[in-house]
């Protein structure tokens, strides 16, 4: 099987700070990571390769430094890495991003062979849109399977897959055909640590680096800001709340603290106690 996994290098959200005056993200010193949701898709791709043979290619679009994330993906076990990088892609919204990625995937298929499955993360932790996967699927005419919790069956010879998909109030069991695009949900598998051999290989591996021209992306009006139907009109920090929290002094022990906290809650919201008494007794 040939499997492609799209990943994104993102700032570690836990460490993001916003500049108080300019309202811009302070990137200096913020470590970058592979978008955590992508790892579940990468792991699933590696499992399919380990079971059926074949190869896993990872693809990312981003600045040259995004090659670090590709190298990490190689160290986890991917076989090949492709970096799509060009200033023409700067400022892409989801529609422009999926145009560039879909073109790059076409080029990957010309160069390295037809892909049976394309994986993306469920969403990223910086943009949070969950729209790039569906956009790529539509542009490449791939059957779309989002929010997958399990690949129950996969038959590369027949080109069939059966998956479990998280839906409202339950799980859909869907049967479809390859080629398809899959996004895995978090917790669907345990992401492996790379083997020592993979780590050594990753350090030396060549990362295939393509510009827009290399990827044969000819229509640059569909890329970057020019190719984005949405525009960001205003960026601002959430309004701070005027009122600060009322701090409760911790007591001598946990029990005293608990009593003080409960007293503070019910003093502030007298009606809560009656409501909660009913709720606690299951009424």
């Amino acid at each position, binding site marked *: 099987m040939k499997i492609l996994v799209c990943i994104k290098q993102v*700032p570690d959200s*836990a460490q*993001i*700070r*916003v500049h108080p005056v300019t309202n*811009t*993200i302070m990137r200096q010193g913020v470590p970058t990571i592979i978008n955590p949701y992508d790892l579940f898709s990468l792991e699933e791709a590696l499992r399919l390769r380990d079971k059926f043979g074949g190869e896993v290619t990872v693809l990312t679009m981003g600045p040259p430094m995004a090659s670090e994330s590709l190298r990490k993906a190689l160290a986890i076990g991917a076989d090949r890495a492709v970096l799509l990088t060009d200033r023409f892609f*700067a*400022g892409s919204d*989801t*529609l422009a991003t999926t145009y560039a990625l879909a073109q790059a995937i076409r080029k990957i298929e010309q160069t390295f062979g037809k892909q049976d499955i394309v994986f993306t993360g469920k969403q990223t*932790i*910086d943009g*949070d*849109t*969950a*729209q790039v996967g*569906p*956009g790529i699927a539509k542009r490449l005419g791939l059957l*779309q399977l*989002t*929010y997958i919790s399990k690949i129950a069956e996969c038959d590369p010879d027949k080109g069939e897959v059966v998956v*479990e998909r*998280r*839906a*409202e*109030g*339950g*799980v*859909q*069991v*869907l049967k479809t055909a390859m080629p398809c695009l899959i996004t895995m949900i*978090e*917790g669907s598998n*345990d992401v492996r640590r790379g083997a020592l051999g993979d780590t050594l290989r990753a350090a030396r591996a060549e990362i295939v680096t393509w510009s827009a021209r290399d990827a044969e992306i000819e229509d640059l009006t569909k890329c970057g*800001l020019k190719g984005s*139907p*949405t*525009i*960001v009109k205003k*960026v601002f*920090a*959430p309004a*701070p*709340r005027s009122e600060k*929290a009322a701090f*409760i002094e*911790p007591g001598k022990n*946990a*029990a005293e603290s608990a*009593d003080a*906290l409960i007293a503070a*809650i019910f003093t502030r*919201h007298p009606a*809560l*106690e009656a409501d*909660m*008494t009913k*709720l*606690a007794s299951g009424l």
Partner: protein
Amino acid sequence: MSATPPPPARANAKKELPEHFRDYKHVWVFIEAERGDVHPVSWELLGEGRKLADKLGVELASVVLGEPGEATKAAAAESFSYGADVAYLVEHPALADYRNESYAKAVTQLVNTHKPEILLLGATNLGRDLAGSVATTLLTGLTADCTELAVDADGSLAATRPTFGGSLLCTIYTLNYRPQMATIRPRVMAMPARDADRTGRIVPFTPDLAEDEIITKLLRFVPDRDSNKSNLAFADVVVAGGMGLQSAENFQLVKNLASVLGAEFGCSRPLVQKGWISSDRQIGQTGKTIRPKLYIAAGISGAIQHRVGVEGADCIVAINTDKNAPIFDFAHVGIVTDAIRLLPALTEAFRQRLSPHQRDRLAG
């Protein structure tokens, strides 16, 4: 979404709507119905859509897809009670259960035929799966996971959404393409009052679909066991835990308190990313938005991504060892202490305080 703030030149881009988009009119809301149940977010969006339509002086339409039959027609009729003037009733056997192929085709055909200027969907798994396909097919803009919608002076949809995990908010326009599409998180917009006497116009639409051309088949649907089903979004009391709990085992302390309170339990995003807790329990921008009377956050630092999911709570109680944690900026009551030590005591204290038996004895 772009991860890079755009240069000012772009932000000042002029609206030049091409001629062929000028007859795109009216506000549409996609009604999410699965197995006969309409997702409440659809009614919330009708409430919000009503405001946008009134401001624009246009009609509000609901878009109802499903298999031919009573349930689908009932959803269309019900949409009038929540504010729709028109209901597009799209019935076809291939629409019995949600599948991306059939739903994306039907919605795209409906848009191309009846041409809305605004199309809103819930930011649920279904809505996000569908919206991305439809927007890409139509090559129009889509603003995902919005928390606020408005119409500006020239009639453009101003869609505001958190970005960078909620550290910043940005307002996004789709200036020169139609429809302007947005997905909106459940429980962000208020539920409108239901008016059973309101009526409207049904517009039937037959999509060009054939089951044998749809490759993906639904083999079966496995409903969640009721006991395990999260009712977070609608709970009156919610207890949640974060990384301050330090281990998956300690999360039991949160569940114990929730159990004594008859509350729902939830968690912050890192616990889901670590695989400790299932994603249907996640509270925040990428999880559930909650509006309880009381919210207790134990060991949660309160990144903005979490904040946007809980701000609607009447009373937010924060327990954290770090007195500078952002959660104290929006909590109403805070205590600087270790949640792992406080939670068992708090559970016991609430158990005594809220027990009717205990109260009777004290009163007697």
